[in-house]
């Protein structure tokens, strides 16, 4: 009888000890926030274009973390979908057709304001998600090309249609080796 009591007492003490340890650890090493959202946000292209139907990349990342479809990011394309699928452990889905970019060109684009036509309405400035348009009321506006994400959001609000999306010309600095275009061969 005494032995049983001793056994129970010892086990009780051990369980209390480990319980306290676990409790302490859960408080001490508590993970703050939702790291998956941050990871998803890092995968998205950060154009803030809103083509996914969310007002920016972070809101879409949050939505994906909460079960939204992963195939709504048009600027990211298949690569981004693949990365998100890897991260979320879901199957790769083809890019949603309604979110597909126009097939005319896939190159990165930048907004361009035809300054002679600009009436200075500031509508595009309000639409720009990254504040990449300079200007003031009744003053000519212009796009800071380096900051422009090519999201297209400024084109629609322009009352005089003076904004167009132009492709960024390829330079030797941005040029990509294309093994299909240039025959690869070792010369020696």
């Amino acid at each position, binding site marked *: 009888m005494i032995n049983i009591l001793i056994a129970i007492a010892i086990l009780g003490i051990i369980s209390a000890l480990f319980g306290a340890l676990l409790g302490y650890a859960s408080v001490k090493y508590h993970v703050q926030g939702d790291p998956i959202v941050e990871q998803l946000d890092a995968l998205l*292209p*950060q*154009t803030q274009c809103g083509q996914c139907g969310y007002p920016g990349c972070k809101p879409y990342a949050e939505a994906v973390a909460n079960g939204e479809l992963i195939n709504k990011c048009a600027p990211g394309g298949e690569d981004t979908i693949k990365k998100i699928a890897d991260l979320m452990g879901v199957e790769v889905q083809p890019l949603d057709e309604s979110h597909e970019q126009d097939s005319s060109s896939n190159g990165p684009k930048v907004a361009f304001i035809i300054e002679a036509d600009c009436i200075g309405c500031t509508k595009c400035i309000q639409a720009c998600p990254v504040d990449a348009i300079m200007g003031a009321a009744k003053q000519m506006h212009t796009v800071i090309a380096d900051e422009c*994400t090519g999201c297209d959001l400024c084109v629609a609000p322009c009352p005089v249609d003076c904004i167009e999306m132009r492709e960024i010309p390829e330079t*030797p600095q941005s040029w990509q*080796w294309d093994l299909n275009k240039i025959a690869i*061969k070792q010369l*020696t």
Partner: protein
Amino acid sequence: MESIIERITQGKFWPFHGGIHPPEQKHFTCDKPIRQLPLPKQLIVPLQQHIGRQGDLLVNVGDKVLKGQPLTQSMNPMSVPIHAPTSGTISAIKRSVIAHPSGLSELCIFIDVDGEDTWRARNICANYTQLSNQQIISKIADAGIAGMGGAGFPTHIKVNTKPDINFLIINAAECEPYITADDLLMREHSSAIVDGIKILDQLLSPAFILIGIEDNKPQAIKALQQATQSIEKIKVCVLPTKYPSGGEKQLIKLLTGKEVASGALPLHAGIVVQNVATCFAISDAVINDTPLIRRVVTLTGQALAKPQNVWALLGTPVSYLLEQTGFNSESALSDQQTTSTPPVIMGGPMMGFSILNEQVPVVKTSNCILAPSKTEMPSAFAHNSNEVECIRCGQCADVCPSQLLPQELQWSAKAKDHPQLAALNLFDCIDCGACAYVCPSQIPLVQYYRVAKAEIRRQQQLDLKAEKAKDRFEARKVRLEREKIAREEKQKKAAAARKAAMNKKTPAAGAAKSAVAAALARVKAKKAASSGESSATITKNIDSANVNTDVNTVNNSAEITDEKSQVQAAIERAKAKRLAKNKAAQQQPESSENIKQDISADTSADKAPTDTEAAKTTHAPADDKKAKIAAAVAKAKAKTQAKALAKKQQDSEEHSNAETDAEVSDNLNAVTIDNKLEISSLTKPALAQDDKKAKIAAAVAKAKAKAQAKAKALAKTQNDQTQQPLVEEVVSPKNETTTDDKAELSEQVDKIEGKSHTKPTTNSENNLAPAPNDKKARIAATVAKAKAKAKAKAAAKAQAKLDGAANAIDTENTNEDRQ
């Protein structure tokens, strides 16, 4: 450090890992002197010829330029200017294909050569030792010198260093096959090169200067050794020939045994490496004030009839150079493959690239133009890659000078596995091509690495841009939030300021307040007029809005008097309307007048510090009102039509008056409420009897009896007499309910009552006096008729009785109205 020098003097070196021994092929050009070429017709000078940024244009189309004149300038430290290689006219500034594997176009300056080769003014500096370091560096920068070994790093940045330099290494290895440009330069211009080395020595003051040169250039070694005999510091280190010993890190390892860590610069190890051609350019720039406008280019390959090293002006099109050296495209294309142009390679066979257009100009980094024949280099002519699968032989890893794993890299590059490539240190690859050279499967490994490197760089740029966009997006969100809060605060402040201005007891504020109150009242009056609401309700509303607890009782008492005057007014109105036909036209102005008066009475009551004042202010408007009503009544009397309509409207008016009473009495004490109940109970039957009255009146008109009229007149005067005690009875309890303190007020209220009593009485007398006269006249006219009709008498008597009853009701009505 001493041990390093000891080892070097003993001729021992630290071998680097890997390396290959490809056929040297230097015999084509190594035994011929550097040839001076005639001036080409046109030069194409790209704005950017090196790593970094291009400068801003200084010239325009049509400008005459002199030899050595700068064409661009820039404040950017990573930028060096370009200069006109000879005198001439700028014919165009446009995009043209540049020396780049992509074959893309960049902005170039086209110079039509005038053939005079006129120099700009030059300052020959015989004694460079007198120049300060800063002067030398600015001279180097202004001369547009960029590393001439291949990468083209701006030299003035490389020599402008602070930390102590242990070794200055002059790279004269020239390890790539075919190329002999540096070899010939060393042979012919060793003294100039040594001058350049001395200038670098002055700038960097290193402990030792090591010239690394491969043992396949005996004449150059001899020339350098002779030129540096007198200088203890300079050691000419003869290295065994092995590709790629000319690689910066490989040369450092060979000479010093030190390995430069991945991602680090040699400078961190106290080592600066300069190409031998750069040393020549430095001496030319500092001593002769000659900018970098020409360089030695090896023109070689079996497709050339006269392969030779030439002094080529920068911007000389490759086609001109090939032409000068007897390029035989037919011998290159020995077979029937005339469909494609023969390959021309810029740079060496290991690290160069095919140029797609022979208009490509020579730039600062172009050291060799290779035009091979098909037998010499069949792979350059092959249109399809002979690549087969990797057999995992591992030879590539054996020869890699950077000790990487080329086959692993290749797989990861094909799979675009960028993290894995980074883990395999792809960026330590120097693109030497040794792995591809030994590959039995003929896999163009370097090409895969180049693609992968470019992709990773692009991805890094995109990531950087994405990060920036994210920051800007977040910043914008914060800004919008801040602006929203600021706007709300501003609105709040403005509202508070308005309120404060209103509550100030200044006359201006009071005026503003009353103006607002008047405006409010006007709006409400309109509403009341349209909905038929009584003015008293408005009064009450305004009262409750302006609640002032301190003078609550005052308000109450003021209201009492006010209400009394209202009641009286209502009575007047009722009477007026009884007589009026054009009721609508009359009522509206009246009611609005009432409202105005009520409001003014209320506001003054609010402001009034004492009870008496409040009471007094209420008097005046009440009196005014009576006068107005009297006038209105007088007008109404003139009109004697549409009695039935007037009565109906009056009925509704009485309804609303009764309601007013009910509402007003809410403000009174319980005693008053009891009285009210009685009043309201009286009002209801009175209203019901009004209809009867109308009928009776109609009947009276029909009857047209004299006696009746007289009786009525008498009855009315009697009623008026009885009115006074009645009203006083009703009013007195109200006054009693007010507190004793307000004795004065109640007295004055009584006075008002008195006034109001007398006036209606006179009014009613006025009302009645003309009316009987009219009647009398009519009666007189009808008497004749009546006499003729004797039978009507009985009916008339009955009617008289009815009329008396009607009159009694009338009096009651008026009494109630007054209350």
